[in-house]
């Protein structure tokens, strides 16, 4: 919403504040000012001058020398190239040292304007400049009386020597407000003016609306029927005859210009003026084109086509409200009129419409027919039906005042359910309790009165006018009090009451450990989108029956690339790694903590399961076992102290078939790791080995513990035995370790792989594996015999697996 300050001052005549004060105070009372423009910020020292004498320039065909009366004893000599001026013309003159906003070509305006200095033009002194409307920072669009090209010429009655900027109405400032959706009333100059008056404690003087009507009866001219009253709460119609189309007066043109609206003619300008002033869109039909002299408001027919007055054909359906005459639609309600009833210069009798349509329906219809207009934007917010009558009367008042036509007596008003103002009991104690203030009731009532909320002392009720639909609770009244008391003046305190413990949830603590471990190992945190393309399934070579293909789909995605909720975190990680690889970043390690979304059924009827995944990915330095080290370190830090089992048998399509494993903790699958399948890396354009680990965090959170028990530092010496074995290649060292753990007995302390070898001296298909096994007792120095018993058990079991000691 924008308003010119001069227009506001019409309704708040006592307003006398600086622009800065205005902006600050309005923002603090709830009408946030987003910006403003001083129309005359670069206009300086510009007066109305009258050309007294014109001579040809002796040395230049295209230049003339003008002697200009600027209201001082001495005339000013100005040389100009403009050809549209003649002796006697009154023109804007910028004097030596003054400033104009732009060049005569009307291009973009320089930030601080253009300084005008006296000088010589082809040898002849020129002591100022006559201005075009473009040089004054505006255009012919807003000043239609300005010539196509050349100097702006004033009307004859303008006083020579007066301030030209003032005469042109450019001594104004235009403010832009951010109006919140609850304050529909503030999408109008009057609404803002009411707030201004209340904010500065000045008198609010809205226009006094009276219509001079003729003695005829409007009902003899037109009949209105509203069939769908759910979508049209009120329809007001008036008739104006003997229309004389012509330009509107300058004051109206200037006001519209300041609001960025082009003056067109008196009729259009009046409807635009009302739209600004009251926030009420109006429409005018040529009554002679309305068949049956009848207006019917009803839903359209699906399949119908309708040509709006911009000449475009629109597809209509039965949810779109139409304005029809006896035989055909003549307008899309609240959006745009039809070409078939359009006002032309030859109009003699018109039908004025000011209605109130359902905001939601207008919003949806506007989307449906693909047309968003100034009118629909206003209606969408949900207007007050009581404004319709005021607006149409005001329009007819202007019709008469501006001599546009003759208003037929009476108004057709279809208004079935009248919207009444509400009443809210004033509970000043509660308001003070909400705000933490101590404001007396009289002060509160004073604030209310300033915004036309009356108070009934008998019933202790605040009477809410119908344009303030947003007020219905004590809390709403508290906000009104707070706005005018000043948010700044409300004290600042801290909550008292029962103490609470500040903490992270256990889940978040586990995630914090994950971040710390990952970062310690050089992994940086990535964040990727939760939605992705279904093409990801192919990129990851997922089999057709993969569970991961069952994804939650978005009904209205931003495009296929963002159309399903991810079921795996791999694509995000691989995309991030790919970005880095292709930007030539070396040895990149990333991790992410983010959800996957697993539907409980397709189509989705319950909220899907959201499982947070700890995903690690890297290329460059490091291998499978570096990754394995990171995840094991993490498991240990969150108290998963038992051995993780690595199972390479369940092959995942996107991983290297020989370099992948699922991770189990106490029989629970908790994640997997591996090298990315070269075909997949290729798809992501990474020409290096990529390693991934994905840990399903909800399980970790379940299993994790931060409890630790001190076990004491060993007092007795350890005994270490080394064994070197020969076994079939297929046997995993994990199997050997399982045997050592199972058969080592209570005195087994630790074991360590120290050699693994294939090749010369080892027969084909076999490998040599060597372990160092350490035993220790808590209560004594171990005897050889103790260790021997354990070792024999281990060796026997290894023998059962076909593993032999190396000779």
């Amino acid at each position, binding site marked *: 919403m924008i308003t010119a300050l001069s227009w506001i001052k019409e309704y708040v005549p006592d307003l006398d504040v600086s622009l800065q004060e205005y902006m600050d105070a309005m923002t603090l009372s709830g009408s946030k000012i987003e910006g403003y423009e001083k129309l005359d910020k670069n206009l300086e020292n510009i007066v109305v001058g009258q050309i007294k004498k014109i001579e040809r320039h002796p040395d230049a065909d295209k230049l003339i020398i003008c002697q200009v009366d600027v209201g001082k004893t001495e005339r000013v000599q100005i040389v100009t190239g403009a050809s549209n001026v003649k002796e006697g013309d009154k023109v804007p003159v910028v004097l030596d040292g003054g400033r104009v906003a732009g060049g005569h070509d009307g291009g973009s305006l320089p930030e601080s304007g253009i300084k005008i200095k006296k000088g010589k033009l082809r040898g002849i002194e020129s002591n100022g400049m006559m201005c075009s409307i473009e040089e004054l920072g505006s255009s012919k669009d807003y000043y239609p009386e300005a010539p196509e090209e050349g100097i702006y010429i004033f009307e004859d009655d303008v006083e020579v020597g007066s301030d030209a900027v003032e005469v042109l109405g450019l001594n104004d400032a235009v403010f832009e407000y951010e109006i919140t959706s609850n304050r529909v009333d503030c999408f109008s100059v009057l609404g803002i003016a009411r707030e201004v008056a209340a904010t500065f404690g000045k008198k609010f003087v809205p226009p006094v609306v009276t219509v001079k009507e003729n003695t005829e009866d409007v009902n003899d001219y037109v009949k209105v029927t509203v069939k769908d009253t759910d979508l049209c709460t009120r329809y007001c119609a008036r008739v104006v005859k003997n229309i004389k189309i012509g330009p509107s007066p300058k004051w109206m043109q200037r006001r519209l210009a300041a609001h960025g609206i082009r003056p067109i003619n008196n009729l259009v300008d009046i409807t635009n003026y009302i739209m600004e002033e009251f926030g009420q869109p109006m429409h005018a039909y040529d009554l002679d084109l309305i068949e049956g002299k009848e207006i019917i408001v009803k839903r359209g027919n699906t399949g119908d086509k309708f040509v709006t007055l911009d000449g475009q054909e629109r597809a209509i359906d039965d949810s779109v409200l139409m304005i029809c005459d006896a035989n055909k639609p003549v307008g899309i309600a609240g959006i745009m009129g039809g070409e078939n009833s359009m006002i032309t210069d030859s109009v003699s009798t018109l039908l004025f419409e000011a209605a109130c349509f359902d905001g939601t329906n207008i919003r949806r219809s506007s989307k449906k027919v693909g047309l968003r207009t100034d009118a629909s934007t206003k209606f*969408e917010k949900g207007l007050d039906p009581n404004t319709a009558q005021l607006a149409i009367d005001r329009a007819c008042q202007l019709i008469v005042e501006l001599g546009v036509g003759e208003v037929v007596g009476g108004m057709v008003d279809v208004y079935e359910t009248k919207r009444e103002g509400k009443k809210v009991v004033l509970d000043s104690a509660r308001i003070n309790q909400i705000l933490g203030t101590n404001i007396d009731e009289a002060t509160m009532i004073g604030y209310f009165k300033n915004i036309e909320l009356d108070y009934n002392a008998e019933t202790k009720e605040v009477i809410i006018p119908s344009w303030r639909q947003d007020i219905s609770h004590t809390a*709403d009244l508290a906000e009104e009090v707070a706005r005018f008391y000043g948010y700044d003046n409300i004290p600042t305190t801290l909550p008292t009451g029962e103490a609470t413990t500040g903490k992270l949830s256990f889940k978040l603590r586990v995630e914090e450990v994950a*971040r710390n471990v990952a970062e310690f190992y050089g992994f*940086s945190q990535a964040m990727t989108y939760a939605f992705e393309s279904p093409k990801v399934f192919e990129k990851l070579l997922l089999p057709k029956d993969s569970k991961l293909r069952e994804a939650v789909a978005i009904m209205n995605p931003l495009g296929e690339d963002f159309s399903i909720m991810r079921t795996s975190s791999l694509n995000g990680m691989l995309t991030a790694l790919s970005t880095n690889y292709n930007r030539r970043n070396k040895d990149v390690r990333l991790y992410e903590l983010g959800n996957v979304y697993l539907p409980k059924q397709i189509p989705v009827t319950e909220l899907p399961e959201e499982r947070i995944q700890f995903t690690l990915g890297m290329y460059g330095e490091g291998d499978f076992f570096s990754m394995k080290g990171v995840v094991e370190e993490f498991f240990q830090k969150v108290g998963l102290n038992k051995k993780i089992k690595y199972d390479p048998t369940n092959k995942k399509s996107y991983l290297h078939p020989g370099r992948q494993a699922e991770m189990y903790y106490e029989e629970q699958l908790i994640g997997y790791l591996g090298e990315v399948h070269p075909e997949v890396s290729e798809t992501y354009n990474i020409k290096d080995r990529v390693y991934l680990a994905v840990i399903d965090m909800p399980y970790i959170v379940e299993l994790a513990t931060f409890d630790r028990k001190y076990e004491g530092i060993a007092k007795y010496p350890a005994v270490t035995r080394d064994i070197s074995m020969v076994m079939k290649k297929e046997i995993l060292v994990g199997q050997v370790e399982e045997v050592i753990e199972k058969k080592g007995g209570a005195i087994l302390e630790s074991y360590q792989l120290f050699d693994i070898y294939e090749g010369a001296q080892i027969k084909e298909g076999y490998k040599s594996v060597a372990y160092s096994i350490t035993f220790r007792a808590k209560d004594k120095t171990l005897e050889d015999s103790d260790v021997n018993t354990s070792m024999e058990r281990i060796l026997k079991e290894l023998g059962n697996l076909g593993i032999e000691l190396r000779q």
Partner: protein
Amino acid sequence: MKDKLQRIKEEAFKQIQDSDALEKLNEVRVAFLGKKGELTAVLKSMKDVAPEDKPMVGQLVNDTRQAIEALLEETKSKLEKAALQLKLQNEGIDVTLPAKKEQLGHRHPNTIALEEVERIFIGMGYEVVEGPEIENNYYNFDALNIPDNHPAKDEQDTFYINSDMVLRTATSPVQVREMEKGKLPIRMIAPGRVFRSDEVDATHSPSFHQVEGLVIDKNITFADLKGTLAEFAKELFGPDTKVKFRPHYFPFTEPSAELDVSCYKCGGKGCRFCKGEGWIEILGCGMVHPNVLRMSGIDPDEYSGFAFGMGLERIALLKYEIDDMRLLYENDYRFLKQF
């Protein structure tokens, strides 16, 4: 005898003084005091000395020995010092050579900003909780006093899963879920991912993060809201930060406000960073709407509360002066390693 000792002593002294290395000094020691040394030889020849002269000669021999030993010791210490000096001199390094570092990873700026926010509120007794990212309409809209035809629903161009399920448009639904648990008082913050149907550009992303805050207790006032958030702003942006509460509108709070902080680049004078305004908007807040309390099973006559919500990316962009939101989701290591 006396002369002989004198001569030995002089000779020893000379040789000790001539020694320029520890090994040589040791040779001198062996030569004079060793088993076959000169002085040892004199001592051995004591048996030939007349008994009445023995004490005198013994004394002399001892004196000589002590004198030599003392000088040996002194010289040894000097030589050792010199040797250490030399060793240290040779061990000098170029301290400007590059450091040996472990390549640590870097935390995402969003997380760093979040941890700052969490630290401040945990310190004030708030619990950090979470809620689902895919939400029922009820929690995302209805329970927050946003009815079906409300314009706010339109403003927040929402991603729908079906007619009853959306990608949450704010972290506010967590408020409702927390209130429904019925455990009072509540002091919580809820960080998390939210979604809006915005195309990706320098200032928009269809997916971003918010932090929601909620306090419910008896006698919570707007003044408490102001005090709490002013404290938060000062902690986050520095003790000289000024705050400004402006009236605003949210369907789920009344009265509502937006909080501006003085621009920490220019201190409020107005600069390019704050677009000349001197103030930067950081969050929305307000007193929880009585309808919201009632719908979540809390009696608004007994309890009141305040809520607030802020965009995490916005905080991160402001704090770290990042000029393009897209950088946060590209995961380029050259970007990440700066945090």
